[in-house]
Structures are given as C-alpha cells and as structure tokens.
C-alpha cells in the first residue's frame, strides 16, 4: 500500500531523513516510535507530501507521489490526523466532515451528511453534529478529526501523535476509536508515544532515530528483546 525507497529530506543544511526504505502492506498497522527530533513525524508527513522529500520515491496505492501525479487526487485517498486536531473552527462539526467529500469527491450534500452522521455515531459523537469545534473537549475534537478523515473513505490513515496534545483522561477515548479502525482492517501508519497502544495494536513497530529506521519487527519482540543499543537506550529512558 505504501512503498518508500531511499527517502531523504533536508531542512536547509540539516538532513532529517537519511535514506528511509519502508513497505507497508494493505491492512497493516505500522507504529513509528522514536525520540523527538528523530524524523518520525517528517517521515509520516512525506507519506502525503505535506513535506516534499529532497530525494527518493514515495508510492501510495500505486501512485508515485514523488512523480508527476496529481497530488490532490492522491491525498484524497490518504487520511491524516494531526496532533493538534486542526479542525476548522468556523464550521460546525458536521460542516467540517462534509466539506471535503462535497468539494473533492463532488458528492451531494444529502449523501455527505448521511455518511458524516454515520461516522459521528461511530466515534461516539452523534449528538455533536451542530457544535463548533472550540466547544468540544480535546478528545472529542480528535474523534471528529478522525471522522473527518474517514469521510473521504481513504485507503490509508496517517496519525501524527494523535494523543500527544490531549489531557490524560481523554487519551483512551481516542485510542479506542483507533482500535476500532484497526479491527475494521484499515491500513495505518501511526506516530505515537503511547507504548502500550503500540504493543497492543501494532503489526509492526518501527524505531526511528536520527533520520533512520534503527530497528523494526513485531512490537512484542522489539519491546521485549531490542537488538540495537540505541533502541535499548531509548526504552531505558521511557519504560
């Protein structure tokens, strides 16, 4: 589903990604962890071209994003959830969700609203359709953001530290929604600091440091028997 070859990204003189190779299979859940500044968010943001790679290839669902592809069309198939939600504060929750399906997919308002209501029910916020984002808690906003991304019926979902900006008591409600997506077979790439969640739902764990994938494998194996020194050092600091 996602195929990344020798991906490099520099900001000015600083090379953030130093040759990443990564293949994500359909329905696979890949969890990316690593210290801050390791490049894990940049890696995720290269998967939908929010960051333009300096070199290398990124192919998502058969479309080479680093080529001549229509980037807007490709992005419609790639859902993204941000750390700070990025809901549109001047629109109601319902409007937030129906906007892109109507403008990008050109589907009718009735159909878009039906889908939106179904998705809101799915994330447990059926009663918040008419609310404005600033009226919601962080956890509720993030669940709306997930529903908004799902409304495009994406083939892949990218999560960029989806619970890092939340109060502790709201982390679970967001993780639960993400779990339900995993159970539905969604292909997902998740950057997170939630190690318990990573262990529970991840098919594969990626440890990234200094712009490189240091170690990867089934989460249990990486957590319990890390092979690389840097992975061990990282775990010793956080676990």
């Amino acid at each position, binding site marked *: 589903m996602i195929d990344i070859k020798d991906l490099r990204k520099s900001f000015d003189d600083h090379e953030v990604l130093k040759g990443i190779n990564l293949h994500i299979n359909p329905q696979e859940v890949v969890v990316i962890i690593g210290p801050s500044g390791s490049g894990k968010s940049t890696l995720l943001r290269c998967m*939908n071209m*929010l960051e333009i790679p300096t070199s290398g290839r990124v192919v998502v669902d058969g479309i080479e994003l680093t080529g001549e592809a229509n980037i*807007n*069309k*490709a*992005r*419609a*198939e*790639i*859902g*993204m959830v*941000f750390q*700070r939600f*990025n*809901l*549109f*504060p*001047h629109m109601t929750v319902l409007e937030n969700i129906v*906007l*892109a399906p109507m*403008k*990008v997919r050109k589907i009718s308002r009735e159909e878009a609203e039906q889908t939106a209501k179904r998705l809101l029910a799915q994330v447990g916020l059926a009663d918040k359709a008419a609310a404005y984002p600033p009226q919601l808690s962080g956890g509720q906003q993030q669940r709306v*953001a997930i529903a*908004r*991304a799902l409304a*495009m019926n994406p083939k892949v979902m990218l999560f960029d530290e989806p619970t890092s900006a939340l109060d502790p008591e709201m982390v679970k409600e967001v993780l639960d929604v993400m779990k339900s997506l995993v159970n539905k077979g969604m292909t997902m790439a998740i950057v997170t600091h939630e190690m318990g969640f990573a262990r529970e739902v991840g098919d594969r764990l990626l440890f990234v440091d200094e712009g490189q994938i240091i170690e990867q494998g089934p989460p249990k194996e990486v957590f319990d028997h890390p092979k690389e020194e840097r992975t061990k050092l990282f775990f010793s600091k956080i676990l």
Partner: protein
Amino acid sequence: MNFNMDLVIQSFPLLLLGAGITVQITAISVGLGLIIGMFVGIARISHVKPLSFLAAVYTDFLRGTPLLVQIFLIYFALPLILDQRVDPFFAAITACGINSGAYIAEIFRAGIQAIDDGQMEAGRSLGMTWVQTMRYIIIPQAFKNIIPPLGNEFIALLKDSSLVSVIGFEELTRRGQLIIARTYGSLEIWLSVAVIYLVMTLAISRLVAYMEKRLKTT
C-alpha cells in the same frame, strides 16, 4: 470675533450633500480596495514568485507615494497617455480604490498569515486544492480577524478622500471651500465640516465594534 450660527444652519444642507458624496466615494473605493486587496494580499503570500513580486511592487509603490500625488497622476498625467480627459469621479474612486487596495492587501496578508498553518495542512491533506482551502477555510477565518483593521482603513480613507477636493470633485471638503469663497465664513464652515467628518468616523467605528462583537459570538 463673532460666530454666525445662521451661516452654519444655512450651509448645512449643502454640506450634508457633500458628506453624502464623501461617503459614496469612500464606500466605492473601499469596495474596490477590498477586491484588489484580497487578490494582491493572496498573491503576496503565494509561492508563485513573479506573482508575489508584482504584489510587493504594487503595495510598495502605493504605500510609498502620497495619495495626493496618485490623484494627480490619474487626473492630470493619465489623460496625456490616454489622450482623453479623465472624469473627476472616475479619478477619485480609482485613486482612492487602488491606494486603499494596497493597504487592504497588507491587512489581508497579515490576517491570512495569522491563521494557524495546520488549517492549510488539514485542508490539503483532505485532497482540497490550495485555492479551495483558501476559499473555504483560510479566508473565512481571516475575514473575522481583519474586520477591526478594515474598519480603521475605512475611517482613514473617509478622511483621506478630502484630498480629491483638489481636482474639483465636490465632496464635503470641496463644498466647504466653495461656501467659504462665497461667504468668507471660514470659522463656521470649517468647524461644521470637521464636525460632520467626526460624526461619520465615530459612526463607522461604532458599526465596526458592533460587527466585531456579533462575529465573535458565532
């Protein structure tokens, strides 16, 4: 010194007519300025280099030269190029409109840049184009932020529009001049003119404050 109240009362209807024209040029100019300002402001921050360069030249030129000179350029110099007389009303609204367009462009630019980058990223990540995201997400939010500075621009332009009196366009200031030429009542007329301007600018600032309050609640 004596203050001739009768002169004030007699002249008032004429001055009010002039005030009406002042409001008219100001409103048309701000309308024109809004359209120009929105496009120039967006061009200024676009990643298309020639576009942002042209927008910068536009704003620098119009903000860096006096409005009075711009009025002269349009009224006296432009006819030499067109080989045709320019109508004073046309000159007035064009000069004021493109001038305020430059200031409004900067207001728009600041208003747009004040919107969190995450809004553009969210729109783009959903597959919307840059233009769609600007139109449905960024600009509606920027509009709320720029209402107070737009109100100030409206007030500034209302006062600056007095400059078009120099090309003989009969707005409030010019009417005052004409009445004084006839009656020699400098004190009465200039005071009246000042008071009328003051009432208009106060009314606008009240209106802006009201709109700001209403927009905040939605």
